[in-house]
């Protein structure tokens, strides 16, 4: 999977014109659905570079946090600031890869073309993007007949086609085989090395060790711990993180 020239981060040019997205500042973020409080006064600061892994038990609010940060849903209370801007103002400068990729009922190539077209990007980049995720040989095949790993790589290529400054990944490698997981991680690492800020939800401890710079551990709608990966795994500070890592159930 070559790092094609067409993938040279356009966002560097774009961000020169726009105000910077980072740092991310989240204060007292609360999300309620009726009587249920899903996120409960969460605060978080993320700095400019790297890959932040969001971990936590099922139902701890990881995916919802991502959607809030991306501006897809709105909080019940609290603030999110990307630099000086709100999430909905910067959705366009970010991309989200869902756990289950939502692919259009078209060919692989047409899925990329669609994004390049709606975002007004150079259509000739398609070949380089497909090459980058190793799908050149499947360009003319129906996207929805791809295997799980291929579908997720296409979703990643589509996300990268928007030249995001921040790339959200919501358990993109859940239910993929080890080779596909490594392929996805390779692409994500490539994006990071080009300066894309990565925010990655995962349950995979090994994956977090491989690619994370820091870990945000969610527990019951709050941040139980936010520490560099070098500290988190050997000496987790919170009891929730210790229980999670040792395999004890935390709800």
């Amino acid at each position, binding site marked *: 999977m070559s790092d094609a020239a067409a993938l040279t981060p356009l966002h560097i040019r774009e961000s020169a014109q726009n105000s910077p997205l980072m740092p991310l500042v989240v204060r007292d973020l609360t999300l309620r659905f009726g009587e249920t409080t899903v996120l409960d006064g969460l605060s978080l600061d993320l700095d400019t570079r790297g890959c932040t892994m969001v971990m936590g038990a099922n139902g701890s609010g990881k995916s919802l946090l991502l959607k809030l940060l991306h501006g*897809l849903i709105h909080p019940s209370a609290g603030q999110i600031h990307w630099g000086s801007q709100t999430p909905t103002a910067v*959705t366009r400068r970010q*991309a989200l890869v869902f756990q289950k990729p*939502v692919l259009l*009922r*078209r060919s692989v190539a047409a899925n990329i073309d*669609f994004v390049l077209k*709606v*975002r007004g990007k150079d259509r000739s980049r398609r070949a380089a993007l497909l090459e980058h995720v190793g799908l050149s040989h499947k360009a003319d095949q*129906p996207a929805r007949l791809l295997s799980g790993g291929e579908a997720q790589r296409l979703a990643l290529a589509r996300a990268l086609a928007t030249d995001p400054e921040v790339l959200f990944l919501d358990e993109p490698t859940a239910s993929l085989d080890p080779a596909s997981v490594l392929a996805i991680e390779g692409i994500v690492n490539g994006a990071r090395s080009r300066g894309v800020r990565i925010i990655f939800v995962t349950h995979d401890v090994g994956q977090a060790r491989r690619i994370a710079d820091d870990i945000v551990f969610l527990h019951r709608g709050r941040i139980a711990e936010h520490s560099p990966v070098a500290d988190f795994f050997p000496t987790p500070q919170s009891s929730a993180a210790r229980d999670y890592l040792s395999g004890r159930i935390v709800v």
Partner: protein
Amino acid sequence: MDFWPIGHGSSEHAFNFTQRLGLNFGCQTAYPPTCGNFCISGIALQSITDALGLAFALVLSGDGDLLEIVALSLRVSLTATVIACLIGLPVGALVAIGRFRGRNAVLIVMNALMGLPPVVVGLLVYLHLSRSGPLGFLGLLYTPSAMIIAQTILIAPIVAALSRQVLEDLHAEYAEQFRSLCLTRLQTIQALLWDARYSLLTVGLAGFGRAIAEVGAVIIVGGNIDHLTRVMTTAIALETSKGDLALALALGIILLIIALGVNAAVQSVRMTAARQAYV
């Protein structure tokens, strides 16, 4: 209890009714009504078998009048289907992705309009297009254009309501991804219409089926004029009442073949699409 006169009276009534409609199957000699039932069924059975033979002969011979009627039917109903899709699909898409006050009321009206009685549509179009009507100056009454207008009004709600359902289901799947990509409303509608194209083919087919099969609206606004506005359904109605069962059956056979053929074509397109997971 003397119930005989009642029964007698009603059979006489039934006979007069068929006479008035012209549905006498050439058995005028069957009067008095006491032997009416027997004569109708006996001769009708005979004439239906003969008529079937004649009908097939007509279909196979490629009779000029027959072809003219079939061609006009297809022209009117296909045009009406295309126009109804041009109106109905965008409306269905807008309602599918829209969140506005009174949306439920719009849904109810759209669904109710699917059941518009053709004769009522025919009557309304007639009132507008007749000499004294607001659109009388166009001189469209008793022309194929009037029939196209009536059929379009009849099936546009069907296309809108069915496509709304199809597109809303698809949008439920795509909505979050589309919001992440910051698509405009127009881009969303275009993408939904394209990605639902094979399901919408079935929606169009439902509209076409209704158009080609209806008789009430086209007979009112078209008038069933030979060589001008005579389509298959109106010709079947006329020929049946005249007792010319051969032509009526021949047209009926063609109508069925068209229905089967169009459905088979759409089905095969859909199956090809399904193999590529495009449905």
